[in-house]
């Protein structure tokens, strides 16, 4: 399971994450990215984190509860 953290002070709303993992990331009304879910087992979160132009996404791998 992956815990996802977005540093909103770095997010610039490029939307690369929402492109790669739309079930998890969405661009909100303010033009910044919000999380639809806090954790996910989808490895697409890793691609999304790597794709962020500002490297604003941190993914922490956790043991499933």
């Amino acid at each position: 399971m992956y815990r996802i953290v977005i540093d909103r002070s770095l997010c610039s709303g490029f939307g690369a994450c929402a492109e790669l993992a739309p079930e998890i990331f969405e661009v909100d009304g303010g033009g910044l990215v919000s999380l639809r879910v806090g954790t996910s087992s989808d490895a697409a979160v890793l691609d999304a984190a790597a794709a962020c132009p500002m490297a604003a996404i941190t993914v922490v791998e956790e043991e499933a509860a």
Partner: protein
Amino acid sequence: MTHDPTFWLLARASGLTAYALLTGSVLAGLVVKSRPFGRAVKTASVTDVHRFLALLALGMLVLHGVSLTLDRTVHMPVAALVVPGLSAYRPGSVALGVLACELAALIVVSFSVRRKIGARNWRRLHWATYLIFAMATAHGLAAGTDSTQPWAFGLYLGAVGAVAFATAWRALTSPTRPTPVPVRERST
């Protein structure tokens, strides 16, 4: 002894190539933000291209400077590559190139310290790219010995036209709102 033109040719070719790479990087950066191709082109890929072209341009500028110091046509001391105005050859236009190169290096480095300076300052600094592009264009036209050639002038004209067009496109489209991706249509 005849003058070996190798470094002189290399200096001219690397300068023009660096300018073309800089133009490509600016265009890719504008595509990242304005997304003219919608979902057909992945933002992550364009970002990679943007960064890669910027680094390649800096590398080409190093080659440009080194080959100028090794050639005897314009007698460029190493210090003139770092301190604007020290060049005996067209000091003003060479100074523009030196400043543009230093500013470009600063912008590349700024990505590594974006957390420290904050995203807002990082973005503000990125606006200086337009200044760098303008300075590089003026430097190329005024200091370059090929500028009077139609092909070289065409390169500068094409680059300025392309950046102006992409900038206008960016200004006319929403700057922060990417194309919405329907959740069910996600491709794997």
